């Protein structure tokens, strides 16, 4: 894994995030915080046939948390609820193409945590 966690891809996703915004007709949403930094993110998910049909996010935070939200939301589209439940730190490392290290891992996984919680909420409500 490369050492430079601020690779060009990360900076680009930070400057021009994908899937930024809200989904008014979302089936589930969840807001997650990173208490260390004060970062926050809210994900909106549309689910169809136990698969992610669409996803958007709003939030504020550092380049790592925002770029990873952009890239993870891209990745997550079309994936099944079951697949999402199995995603972990390694999934995030693979999506980002780098290992953010122990301190920044909380930033990098913020959006995935929010997505998992949103999906969990969806399951409980169904």
């Amino acid at each position, binding site marked *: 894994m490369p050492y430079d966690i*601020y690779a060009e891809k990360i*900076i680009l996703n*930070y400057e021009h995030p994908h899937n930024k915004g809200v989904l008014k007709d979302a089936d589930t949403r969840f807001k997650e915080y990173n208490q*260390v*930094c*004060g970062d926050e993110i809210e994900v909106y998910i549309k689910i169809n046939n136990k698969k992610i049909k669409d996803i958007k996010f709003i939030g*504020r*935070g550092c*380049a790592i948390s*925002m770029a990873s939200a952009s890239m993870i939301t891209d990745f997550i589209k079309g994936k099944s609820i079951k697949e999402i439940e199995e995603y972990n730190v390694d999934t995030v490392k693979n999506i980002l193409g780098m290992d953010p290290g122990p301190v920044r891992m909380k930033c990098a996984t913020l959006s995935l945590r929010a997505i998992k919680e949103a999906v969990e909420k969806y399951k409980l409500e169904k």
Partner: protein
Amino acid sequence: MYDVNKIREDFPILKIKVNGKKLVYFDNAATAQKPLQVINGIKYYYENYNSNIHRGMYKIAEDATARYIESKTKFAKFINAGSIEEIVYTRNTTEAINFVALTYGNKVIQKGDHILISEAEHHSNLLPWLWLAKRKKAHLDYIKLNKEKTGLDIESLKTQLEKKPKITAVFHASNVLGSVNDIKYITRLAHKNNSTVLIDGAQSIPNMKIDVKDIGCDFFAASAHKMMGPAGIGILFAKKSILNNINPLFGGGEMVKQVNKYSCTLNDLPWRFESGTQNIEGAIGLASAIDYINKIGIDNIKKHEQNLVKYAFDELSSIKNLEIFGGNNEKNKVGIISFAINKIHPHDIAYLFDKEGIAIRAGHHCAMPVVSELSKEHSISRMSFYLYNTTQEIDAAVNAINKIKNKFNIQ
């Protein structure tokens, strides 16, 4: 002659390398580094007279007791308190303020009363009062920031004092803005309105001459670790007349003279407020820190910090897309410069500073109301200086900023 290189030799940690670079420690507002004099003071205690204080009938316990009391005597003199009766040791500034809210506050605040703090307080001088107000159904009022957001608005102070708060609690130096309150003036105005006054001295104790008699405040809270002493020991100065009229928070060893099954007689001041075994090594380390500061001279430390602030301000002001908070009047500032770079999150800045071996702080600085006021990210970066920092280190920080801006494609 202030010889910063000679001072640096007293601090072993300044020799370490971080990420292959010489450590530049710019997080002094969080905690200060420790000189050999403090480290050795504590080591000497552990190696030569470690024992419990107050009642040991043997030589080393007498030594430990004497050093503990001497620590208080030194601190009382350091801030010009009347006597050690007015010096209560706590764990930190936070505990000192909470202690006042839970004892004096609980006693005097009643339903409908007012408590006055400011918008720029550290959470430690906000939450104890917020909770006290909630417990008692009292009102918590805020002195506003001035228009420039560099310090407190004196007109707002005057307006709020018209509500006759029973307690006014404000910072001496802001951990975010770096600006210094005229606490003597604030105390005088508050006293005119029959308000008691607590000063949060966490950021002024390391670098400003404190004279509680001259200030006139009723309470002054501080931490040893910010003035090069160890963590885990804080100090509450409280006027004797007040301490005599409040009850201890904790019962236990040493705080009583005699105990029977259904009553007790409290010990004298200040011991009745220090139950159980105290942070003895902390007190001894604090005494060494006071000696060290006195050797350098607190006014020299202040002047050095102001020179660094001015230098940093001049250097940072010329950087495009960089905003400095708290104003540029170094005469009215401690060694704190908070800043933001357009479109780069403070946590990315702090992380990339670390790659250059420079330790700074980023975030809400435990003062969320004021930081939210300053930044829509609710987060800012802060460099804070102390007696061992140099202008060359500030140059290194400026280089780091330029590198980071390049990385983020910012002009």
